[in-house]
């Protein structure tokens, strides 16, 4: 197999595993469909913005939860709600699922539960970021080797 075919094979396998392991869902597929020659870096740009949003929201949650005088659970909940929305929009399924579990802890004003969820959401975000960055690097390698990026149905 030549280099391009090998890379393409890797790309297909890696992408398939992301779906199979629940890191991304169909919404991520929809994002791919919005990318074309007029907007060739659309997915990378949106995902980059999503990671920036994540970091900001996770920081907001952490700050709110470490208030010794009394945690503003409404503020934590607002950030979780927003993260749930953004992660849904880009198809970040695992991140979204943690957000779904997070909200009842906010409603119950359960600080320990919230801190556990925050840890989980931070973990899922880090793992996803790593995986997508690996995927984007693979894409760059394929293009640099003169190949085209396989479309996964």
């Amino acid at each position, binding site marked *: 197999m030549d280099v391009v075919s090998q890379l393409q094979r890797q790309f297909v396998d890696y992408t398939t595993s992301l779906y199979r392991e629940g890191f991304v869902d169909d*919404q991520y597929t929809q994002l791919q469909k919005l990318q074309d020659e007029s907007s060739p870096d659309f997915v990378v740009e*949106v995902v980059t913005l999503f990671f920036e949003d994540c970091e900001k929201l996770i920081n907001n949650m952490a700050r709110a939860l470490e208030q010794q005088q009394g945690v503003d659970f409404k503020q934590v909940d607002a950030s979780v*709600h*927003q993260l*749930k*929305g*953004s992660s*849904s*929009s880009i198809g970040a399924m695992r991140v*979204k699922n943690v957000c779904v579990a997070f909200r009842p802890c906010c409603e119950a004003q359960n600080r320990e539960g919230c801190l556990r969820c925050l840890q989980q959401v931070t973990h899922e975000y880090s793992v996803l970021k790593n995986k997508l960055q690996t995927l984007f690097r693979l894409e760059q390698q394929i293009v640099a080797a003169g190949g085209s990026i396989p479309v996964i149905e």
Partner: protein
Amino acid sequence: MAVAAGEVFASGSQELHVLAVDDSNADGKIIERLLKISSCKATAVESGIRALQFLGLDGEKHSGYNVNLIMTDYSMPGMTGYELLKKIKESSACRQIPVVIMSSENILTRIDRYFFNSIIFLLHRV
């Protein structure tokens, strides 16, 4: 929300200018892309305040931008989509512009009936 939004549009002969308001940068970019694919001119801003500035409703002179439709997220820090809607409807220059509010929560009970017939709701697939 971003994907559902794309289905609202049919392309007309004249390019519509849509103002999209969303505090999530990722969502804003997706909406902007969907609008462009639907042959609309799209401007994305990240808050109600910025939207009012763009429309020329913050006390400064009217910006001169011609906006045909406003699509806004409901829950945003600072000014909610509903508060933005109220400001727009209070303005003689902008009250004719249709406003679409997008939300993943059931917000009907929070909306004043007076404005009901100027709002379309899109439900977020969450």
